[in-house]
Structures are given as structure tokens and as C-alpha cells.
């Protein structure tokens, strides 16, 4: 079927839980397998029963592609592969492969240990799931099978995030995942070539936003940190090992230098090791600036930023500390938080989304009294701030990307239908492409017109050329021939050659029609009259009177015979081959009108 079918299982007008099913030229691909962060029950997973009611997922799906390590794009992967059951390949970039399991394990710990959930995937399941992963490089064409190929493009957004092109023959789909069109301090901007896919699937969560400039966010961040340390307070910044931490460190270092500040900045050692390790592995994934810095010095050899020792947390006076984990759910950041929470001079700046159930989530919701282990209640007097630096594409960014790839159609996921009417119009008018916005579970079918290459035999080609009229580049030319399909090969040959190749004999079809005329004359005279009539009427055709009395018009034979029952009537037998159908019918009709009276 020349069509592409897309069904969002999660995403598609629902933020959280990205999971999209694409059928292209008979191949089935699942894009992302995310977890909805807002639900605690089965609603957090995409509805996989859409894929196939019976039959195994492994048989139905040709592959699974994961765009990046955020849980709303990969959080349901172990559940999907180990608990629902999928053994096929899972494609993702190298950094995603390295970081995914860490986040999944972190999340698993929170769900099971903190919230006591049952029926959740286990650590072993995460490991087993990751064994099915095939890592890909940017711009590397990967053959999934001999028809399906995929290619990853740089997406910005987070380390290792990629946009994927899925191609079967001449049909292709590009899935953007989450991406960002403006570079920041440690990641470049998304980029794709003019690949002209049939369909571009892009997220539109932020399509209706106009983002505050990064410099203003940074300014705000610096202002908060500065004000806190100026009044003698301590600033805690819980971070994930990678990504924003580096960016914020660079920012603070620059600011400290400029303002000649002496207040100590620390980052926890666990953070250093992990971060350094990953950055060394994936240095090509960061942007130019970071790479330059890395070459000149070690990522964490800052003048003003030192390694943290847990004893420092009790030191008097102002300081800034970066500590993991990012959601304050365990470990060093939580330890430090507990020590500093009671003092209103202190501040904690949460740099990203926190999962429900974590301390980070609770304090961002405004909770000021927290129950810790052993029924201890912690009163939170320190200031709580949220500073999101995460980068998504806004309307301007989406238009830019669509302009780069030049797809035939665009499909928007992650947005609210009512709020997308304007963007849809904008895309359709400005970029002249159709725009689709399916809801969860709704299938969009896109007709495509794939070009099928057919080889033409030299003999046939020569024959056509001999008919004169040079072919014109833009005008379609009608050819007659026989199409032979063998294996995946298409050939156009002349009928004779086809018959020969296939060992078939040519059939001849001959039609005979009886025309009854009232005429008392003898057959021979009749034939003569027919001959004269046709000769004078059909001036363009070759009309002959044969010695045996029959008349021929081109290759059509007309014979006169007596009518078996009616002596006053005659029967004209008109006979022609299939090729002369038109003339044959014409003659018959003509003769039925009767012969002219002889003068």
C-alpha cells in the first residue's frame, strides 16, 4: 500500500509518555517508549495493545527507536521489552545507551524503594533490556534489514538526543523527538539536511510559547545565587551528573571571575568522575565551545570551583554546592539539603523536573514540612527556587526545522488540538505542507506516491524511438509493453519478447459477425455490390475483391452467403481479428444499414 500510517500511543495531544507507531511500506517501527510522569498506575505506560491484539510484538515490530534518555521517552522501555515482551532491536545513540540505564535504575529505586510499588520492572530487567540495544552514530545509515534503514541526526536538547530518519525505498519519515534550534553553552543546535521526507513528526509542546532569552534566565540565576551568598547564605543546586551542571558551572565561574568573588563553589566528587567520564566518551556530542575548553583543560579544573568534602557542609559562611542526585531523592544532595533546610538565609535551586514522590517534587509543590525516615519532620525554611534551562523548540524553531528538512507533510504530537489551529494554518500556509494532529490512539494515514523503478528492454526502447517524436522531459509518454515482475525486479519488454521468455504462444482472437440483409440476388452479385459500396465509401482503406468472391477491408474478411431459411435474404459474414476491433465494428454497423440501391 503506498501509504504511511502513524498512531501515537502516548504523546499525541498529551504531554508525557511519548510513544509513536509508524507503518511505512509494510515495515512497523515504534518511536520512543516513554513513561507518563504524572500517573502512578498503568496509565503511565503507553497502551501497547494498540500495536497488535494477538501475535507477538517481536514479529510485528521491525525495530524500536529511542530518541534520548529523558524518562518521558524511554521510561517504559524495560516494561515494554521485558514485561510485555519484545526481543527485536532497540536503536539509540551511544550517549543515550550509556545514560538510559542510570536514569531507569534511579527511577526504579524511587518507585519501588520510596513508594513501595509492586509490579515494577526490576534491575535485572533493565540490564536485559539494554542488551537488546544497538547503538548508532550520527549520520550513519543503519540497515535494520535489507529494506529498512535508519539514520540519526543531532538534536541538541540533551546529551545524545537525536532525530531519526526512517527510510524504506523512496519513502521516508523523520521523527524529531525533543530538539532545540538554539545552541547553548554545552550543546549545539539541532540540524538536518534537506532530506525531503514524506512526513516529519515533530513535538509541539512549546510551539505556542515564545521563550524568554537564555541570557535573562542566566541573569536571574546569577542574581539569586549572588543575593544569597551576599547575605551569608548557602546555595544548594541538585544536579544530574551531566548536562546542565557543566553549563551552570561555566556560568558561575565566569561570573565569579568578573565580580571577583571569594565565596567557595563546590561540586561533589561523584559528580566529577561520572561527568568527566561521560564527557570524554561523548565529547563529539557537545558543542564547539566545550570541546575547545576540554582540549585546553580538564572539564572540572575551574579556578573557583573545588571538589566537595561532606565535612564542608557544616562550615560556617556562604558557599555554593552542586550535588547529585537531581531530584533530591537520595544521596549527597539530600544529605546537604537536610542540613541546610532549616535556615531561611539558604537557598535550593532545582534545575529541572522532579518526579512525584521525591523531596524535590514536594518542595516545588510548596510543601514546607517533610516527613523523613524515622518519622522525623523536617521544616523547610530555606528558599526554594526553580530554574529550568531545558531547551525545547518554540514556534520559530519548529518552522526552522521544517524549513530545513522540507517534508511533504508535518505531524504534530504533544500539543492540544484546540490550541493548535493557528500553528497548523501557519505551517500549511508558510511552508505549503499538510499538517496533521492526531490524538492518542488515532491513526493518521498519509497517501504517498512512491516511484517504482522499472527497467526497459533496449529493443522496446529502440522501437519507441523509431516511432519518431523525441521524448520530452516533463511530458509523460505512453508506452505499450509487458511488465515482468520477478523477485524485486521490474522490467518492461515488448510482448513478443515476453512471450518468448515465458514460453507462451500468442493467441489470436477472431470475431465473426453475421449481418442479415434482404436481398434476392445471388451471393456473387451481392459480394460485388458490397465491394463497390465499400470501395466508394471507405476511401482511406484498402478494399479488395478476391477471386473467390470475398471482400477484404484491410485484414477484415467479408463473405456473402445464402440465408438458410429465408430465400429472400442474404447473410454477410464479417470476420476480423482482435486487433481490428474498431474497424470491424464500424464495418458491421455500416453494412447493417443496408446496401445502396443500384441505379
Amino acid at each position, binding site marked *: 500500500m503506498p501509504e504511511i500510517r502513524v498512531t501515537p500511543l502516548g504523546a499525541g495531544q498529551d504531554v508525557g509518555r511519548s510513544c509513536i507507531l509508524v507503518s511505512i511500506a509494510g515495515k512497523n517501527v515504534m518511536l520512543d517508549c516513554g513513561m507518563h510522569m504524572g500517573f502512578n498506575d498503568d496509565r503511565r505506560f503507553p497502551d501497547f495493545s494498540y500495536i497488535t491484539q494477538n501475535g507477538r510484538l517481536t514479529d510485528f515490530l521491525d525495530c524500536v527507536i529511542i530518541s534520548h534518555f529523558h524518562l518521558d521517552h524511554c521510561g517504559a522501555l524495560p516494561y515494554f521489552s521485558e514485561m510485555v515482551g519484545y526481543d527485536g532491536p532497540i536503536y539509540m545513540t551511544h550517549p543515550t545507551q550509556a545514560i538510559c540505564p542510570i536514569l531507569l535504575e534511579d527511577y526504579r529505586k524511587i518507585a519501588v524503594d520510596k513508594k513501595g510499588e509492586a509490579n515494577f520492572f526490576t534491575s535485572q530487567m533493565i540490564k536485559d533490556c539494554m542488551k537488546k540495544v544497538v547503538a548508532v552514530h550520527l549520520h550513519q545509515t543503519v540497515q535494520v534489514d535489507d529494506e529498512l534503514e535508519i539514520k540519526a541526526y543531532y538534536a541538541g536538547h540533551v546529551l545524545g538526543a537525536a532525530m531519526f530518519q526512517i527510510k524504506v525505498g523512496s519513502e521516508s519519515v523523520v521523527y524529531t523527538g525533543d530538539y532545540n534550534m538554539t545552541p547553548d553553552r554545552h550543546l549545539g543546535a539541532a540540524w538536518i539536511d534537506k532530506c525531503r521526507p514524506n512526513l516529519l513528526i515533530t513535538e509541539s509542546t*512549546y510551539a505556542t510559547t*515564545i521563550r524568554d*532569552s537564555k*541570557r535573562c534566565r542566566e541573569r536571574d540565576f546569577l*542574581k539569586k545565587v549572588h543575593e544569597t551568598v551576599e547575605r551569608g547564605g548557602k546555595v544548594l543546586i541538585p544536579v544530574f551528573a551531566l548536562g546542565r551542571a557543566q553549563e551552570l558551572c561555566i556560568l558561575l565561574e565566569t561570573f565569579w571571575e568578573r565580580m571577583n568573588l571569594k565565596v567557595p563553589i563546590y561540586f561533589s566528587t561523584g559528580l566529577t568522575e561520572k561527568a568527566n567520564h561521560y564527557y570524554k566518551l561523548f565529547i563529539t556530542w557537545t558543542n564547539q565551545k566545550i570541546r575547545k575548553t576540554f582540549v585546553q583543560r580538564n572539564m572540572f579544573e575551574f579556578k573557583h570551583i573545588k571538589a566537595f568534602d561532606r565535612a564542608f557542609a557544616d562550615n560556617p559562611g556562604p558557599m555554593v554546592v552542586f550535588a547529585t542526585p537531581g531530584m533530591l531523592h537520595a544521596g549527597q544532595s539530600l544529605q546537604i539539603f537536610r542540613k541546610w533546610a532549616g535556615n531561611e538565609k539558604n537557598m535550593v535551586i532545582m534545575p529541572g523536573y522532579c518526579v512525584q514522590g521525591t523531596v524535590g517534587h514536594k518542595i*516545588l509543590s510548596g510543601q514546607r514540612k517533610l516527613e523523613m525516615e524515622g518519622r522525623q519532620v523536617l521544616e523547610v525554611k530555606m528558599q526554594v527556587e526553580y530554574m529550568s534551562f531545558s531547551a525545547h523548540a518554540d514556534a520559530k524553531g519548529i*518552522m526552522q526545522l521544517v524549513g530545513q528538512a522540507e517534508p511533504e507533510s508535518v505531524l504534530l504530537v504533544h500539543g492540544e488540538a484546540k490550541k493548535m489551529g493557528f500553528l497548523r494554518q501557519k505551517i500549511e500556509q508558510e511552508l505549503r505542507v499538510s499538517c496533521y494532529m492526531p490524538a492518542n490512539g488515532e491513526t493518521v494515514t498519509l497517501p504517498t506516491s512512491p516511484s517504482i523503478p522499472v527497467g526497459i528492454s533496449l529493443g522496446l526502447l529502440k522501437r519507441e524511438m523509431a516511432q519518431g517524436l523525441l521524448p520530452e522531459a516533463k511530458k509523460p509518454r505512453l508506452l505499450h509493453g509487458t511488465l515482468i515482475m520477478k523477485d524485486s525486479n521490474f522490467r518492461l519488454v515488448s510482448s513478443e519478447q515476453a512471450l518468448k521468455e515465458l514460453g507462451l504462444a500468442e493467441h489470436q482472437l477472431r470475431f465473426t459477425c453475421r449481418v442479415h440483409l434482404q436481398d434476392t440476388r445471388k451471393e456473387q452479385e451481392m459480394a460485388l455490390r458490397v465491394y463497390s459500396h465499400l470501395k466508394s465509401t471507405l476511401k482511406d482503406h484498402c478494399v479488395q475483391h478476391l477471386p473467390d468472391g470475398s471482400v477484404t477491408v484491410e485484414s477484415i474478411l467479408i463473405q456473402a452467403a445464402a440465408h438458410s431459411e429465408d430465400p429472400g435474404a442474404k447473410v454477410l459474414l464479417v470476420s476480423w481479428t482482435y486487433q481490428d476491433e474498431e474497424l470491424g465494428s464500424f464495418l458491421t454497423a455500416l453494412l447493417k444499414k443496408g446496401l445502396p440501391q443500384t441505379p
Partner: protein
Amino acid sequence: MRTEAQESWLAWSQRLGGGYQDFHAFDLSAPTRVLEWIGDKGVFIAGYESLKKNEILHLMLPPRLSVKENQGLFPERDFKVSHGGFSDRAILELKHVPDTRLLVTSGLPGCYLRLWHITEDSDVIKAVSTISVQEKAGDLWPRLAVFSMVPRVLHGVQLSSLQVVDLESWKTTYSSGVTDSEELSNLQVLDGDTFAFCCTSGRLGLVDTRQPWAPLENPSPSPGSGGQRWCAEVKDRGQGPGPCFSSLCTDGQLCLLDARDLFHPVSSVQCPVTTPSPDPELLRVTWAPGLDNCLAVSGFDGTVQVYDVTSWEGMGSQVKPLFTHRGHIFLDESKGDTAPLVTTHTWHPCKPRTLLSSASDASLHVWDWVDPRPSC
């Protein structure tokens, strides 16, 4: 490794304490010449390019700005596009009809008014009707102001074409009826029956629509060297004592006048601005709705200047702004092209020191300045 631009940004942002309470910068996809409030949480902007389709956008202010306490817990620092529409012509004036879902715009080419409807069940702004108001007037377009009680629009290119039109019936309910072809630069509705006008020549007037044309007005100031152009704004009734008219000239002159005696300005000062202004039509002067005797001036360059007029007196004195917003210059990413010009600015209706300003490089800033004077 740091670029020059980053250095100057850092230098500028060092003034964290003594400059801005808050500052947000946004990049629109196209520059706007209009900033029109809808309530106190939304603004309309519109494109003014002549050769392509322009967008009208209804933007919701970042929720962060509406919150007084605990700003830190509100991550939402972005504008949201709430509704959008398309216009095949440049939009140079846009007014929202209060308490309705209607907008009126005018622009180029042509001399027309266009009525728009903000649909309820989708996010599209639809053009409802377009009426031509007079023969093409070259490069001029009708100025607009709206009455609220009964939806009517005041429009005019020149004094002679000043009219009030009812938006439901499109009937003209008032005409100036004069033949004077002086070009208008501002129109402002003051209440259900009164409006003010300002001509490019500097001629100001207050008109009562219940009477045939008989405005309270001043004579045109003596024509100075060619190319001078004036604009003006009248204080809202409830905005405290003092002169209510402020008029601004492209040569940097700022006059304060009292409605009771438009012939004799209360004071006139010289603002420290770059003259001649590169685009006289961008000039704008506005009174602060939440502060006594403060006004803002823009259109000469990439800055917006805030002045306190309380102690102004006499004629011709040099004054200094209380605060100058230089964000559009410092954050300009165009790298070497002509410096951006502020195309328009507006005060937040409720937050006394918050302003919005937009520039020709498609930037949109929301900023809250700190009064540098010691509080008594």
C-alpha cells in the same frame, strides 16, 4: 574565548542590584509596531512587513509576572501564544475593543479599517470585515482609538477625515466636518463623549462629540526646520494632579500642557536623545498609569527613557531620564547591522514600574526598573 558581545552583556548585567527588578527578553519571529493590552494578562502584537503575510498574535504574559510572592516556584517565564491570525497587509495600528472579542486594525497599503474576531472554540483570530474609509492617502493610514461603552471606533488620517463609526452597524455617528487636511499622529479616547487628537504639526485638541466640531486646542507650534513631527498622550482622568497633555517632537522637545490652557505649555524641556530621530513615525510618549507624574519616551534609538516630570518648569531646560532601558542595544544579536530602534512601548496596567518594549530586531522586552532615588 568570550566574544565582545558577551563581555558587554556581562558588564551590563552586573547592574543587577541597582538596575532592574526583573527583566525578560524574548525574540519574536517578526517585529511589531503595536503593543495593545487585553486586560492585564495579555497583549496583542502584529507584523508590519509589506511583502509577506503578517501575523497578529494574542500573547499571554508569563504567569511569573502576575505572581507577587514566591515567584521562584513559578517556572513559567515564557509568553504563550493564545490566539493568532493572518493579515495580508502590514498592520500599523491595532486596538482592542474593551469587553469584546473584537479587534480593529489599520495599516498599509490602502486606507481601510479591518475588524477581527477572536474565536472562542479555537485559537484563530479571523478577519470579519474590511471597510475602506477614504481614498488612498499615499503613505498615510488611519489612526485609531476605541470607545468602550458602545463599541465604536474613532479613526482618521487627517482632521478632515476624522470620524466615529459604530462597529455593529458601520454607520458614522460623528464627523469632524472640517476641510482641514492636517495629518494626524495620535488619537485618544478619554471617555464616552470626549477624545483628544494630536497632529504631526504639534497641534493638539480636545473634542466633545456631543457638539459639532469645536475643539479646545492650541495653535500649531511655529513651524521649525522641516521634518519635525509631534506626537502626544493625555493622562487618564484618575492619574493624579498636574498637566495632563504631554507632547513630544522629533527634535527632542517634550512639552507638558494643561487642558484648561492649551495655548500656554506648563513647561517644555529638551530630552537627551539622538536627533534627528531616524524614523519619526516611531516616536511615542506615554504616561505611567501607576505612578504620579512619570512618563516614558521611545522611538529615537534603541532605548526607552523614563522621566519624572514633577519638578519640571520653565522652557527649554535640559533634563535627565530617571531610568534608561538599554536592553535592546545590549542584547542585539544582529552583529553589525543598523542598531535596533524601539518601535513601541507600553506600561503594565497594574504593576507600576513594569513596561513592555519592542524593537525593529523583533525583540520584545518586559522589564521592571528600580527607582534609583533613595526612598524618603
